[in-house]
């Protein structure tokens, strides 16, 4: 019961706090709109927000897929070929040293104002956590398992497929959780720099025309989507790995 009520209580208290700040500061609605006003703006612009949300969700989703495919395959190459580690690891770290904000304009210039540049941005931001986590997992296979497989006359490729990759799944899952949490950043940054659709575009547009209530409505929608995505991925990953002990989950609700 308390589990279901908790998100409602948290959301309710935040909205209340927000309303109190509006009352106390007496800010005009174009600086800080009241929750009711934002709700109204959300309702009036429902179809507009829905359309832009679809675009952003698509960008995040495609970014997640591309980033995961690219990241996992890079980690496999890194773990399997010794020379690849020496050549690719510096590039990998370097790619993370350049902030995605800095290359966003170039990506928009190259890939256009459409969806491609945002997908590329999300992919780029996801790539690193996926590679590092999966690679770490692949490196830390229990040596006894590999020894055992060797006495069973298994080929290195089958040891990789049947033992090292499944053993690295929990690490990959950690990477995917981080990736899901940061993917919206990539998409939104891309939309801010140059776009004609998406929640980031809508926010920028509304802000420019002092439609602060619409901007807040778009922002809250984005947050709701990011949270929903995270929980869906988290639950999915848990279900996919029933052997993974989960101490926190097993603790009794207090």
């Amino acid at each position: 019961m308390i589990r279901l009520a908790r998100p409602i209580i948290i959301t309710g208290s935040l909205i209340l706090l927000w309303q109190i700040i509006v009352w106390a500061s007496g800010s005009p609605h174009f600086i800080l709109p009241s929750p009711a006003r934002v709700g109204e703006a959300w309702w009036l612009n429902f179809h507009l927000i829905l359309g832009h949300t679809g675009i952003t969700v698509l960008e995040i989703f495609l970014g997640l897929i591309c980033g995961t495919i690219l990241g996992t395959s890079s980690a496999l190459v890194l773990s399997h070929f010794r020379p690849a580690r020496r050549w690719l690891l510096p590039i990998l770290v370097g790619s993370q040293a350049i902030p995605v904000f800095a290359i966003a304009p170039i990506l928009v210039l190259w890939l256009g104002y459409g969806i491609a540049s945002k997908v590329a941005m999300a992919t780029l931001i996801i790539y690193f956590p996926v590679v590092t986590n999966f690679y770490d997992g692949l490196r830390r296979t229990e040596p006894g398992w590999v020894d055992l497989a060797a006495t069973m006359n298994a080929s290195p490729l089958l040891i990789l497929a049947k033992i090292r990759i499944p053993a690295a799944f929990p690490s990959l899952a950690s990477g995917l959780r981080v990736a899901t949490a940061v993917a919206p950043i990539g998409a939104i940054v891309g939309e801010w720099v140059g776009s004609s659709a998406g929640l980031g575009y809508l926010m920028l547009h509304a802000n420019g025309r002092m439609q602060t209530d619409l901007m807040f409505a778009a922002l809250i929608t984005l947050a709701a989507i990011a949270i929903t995505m995270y929980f869906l991925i988290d639950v999915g990953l848990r279900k996919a790995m029933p052997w993974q002990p989960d101490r926190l989950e097993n603790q009794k609700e207090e």
Partner: protein
Amino acid sequence: MPQKQRKISTQITSATSGANHPPVGLSLSNASLKFDGTYLFQDLSIDLPQGLCSVLLGPSGVGKSSLLKIIAGIQPFETNGSITLKPDGRANVQITGVEKNNPFNLIAYMAQQDLLLPWLSAIENVILGARLRRERPDIGKANELLRLVGLANSANTLPAKLSGGMRQRVALARTLMENRPIILMDEPFSALDAITRLHLQELAINLLTGRTILMVTHDPLEALRIGHRILIMSGQPATLIETECPAEEIPRNPSDPELLTHNANLIQQLAKLDTSPFAQTKTVPR
């Protein structure tokens, strides 16, 4: 390759019988292993007579596990070492390099940890070897083996849901599933409580009858209970000596007074070989 290995020659001899795998003996001669610049052992030879259980005792870190892993083919060594195999009276086969070791599928390995893959059920763990060789697994035989180790009802259970003793029994079934004539065991029961250990020793010995076994252990009583022969490995570089062993058939009764006398003697013998800083402790015989 961090390990330096000189002059390895392993001979595998066998007699023919009707079984899937005839009993096979193994002898390893002149094995040397360097670890961090010092020799763990040099020109060490060991004989595993066919169909007998040889137990290897000795202090920690003396190189027992390494010796076992060399025979299993999972301890890397330089290619100037050589292995000679003589299975089924065939001509000697000269092989160099660790990757070509265990070439006749003669050896199965069982470690102290059960090494069960946590994402596979008990039965899937039992047929792991076939899966890793892309062979069609014999599910019927796997079920039969699980029944023999008393786990017929846990075939589809994940290892995390099994107790330590049950997991080690699955590992035993997996070892039997490989159906190899030579079984190498590295302290397979040391993590279990005393009673479970006694049960598992007996179960393992009964199921592995007729196979050539080399078992590493810390426990003199375990050695006396299930060993046809007891070898003590000690010193640096380490050497092997064979010690006296009760005459009865294995598994022997652990509460038999004669066995306990042997146990006291064996502990005394091991204590004499102990060169560790705590060797002066009063209650340990010297």
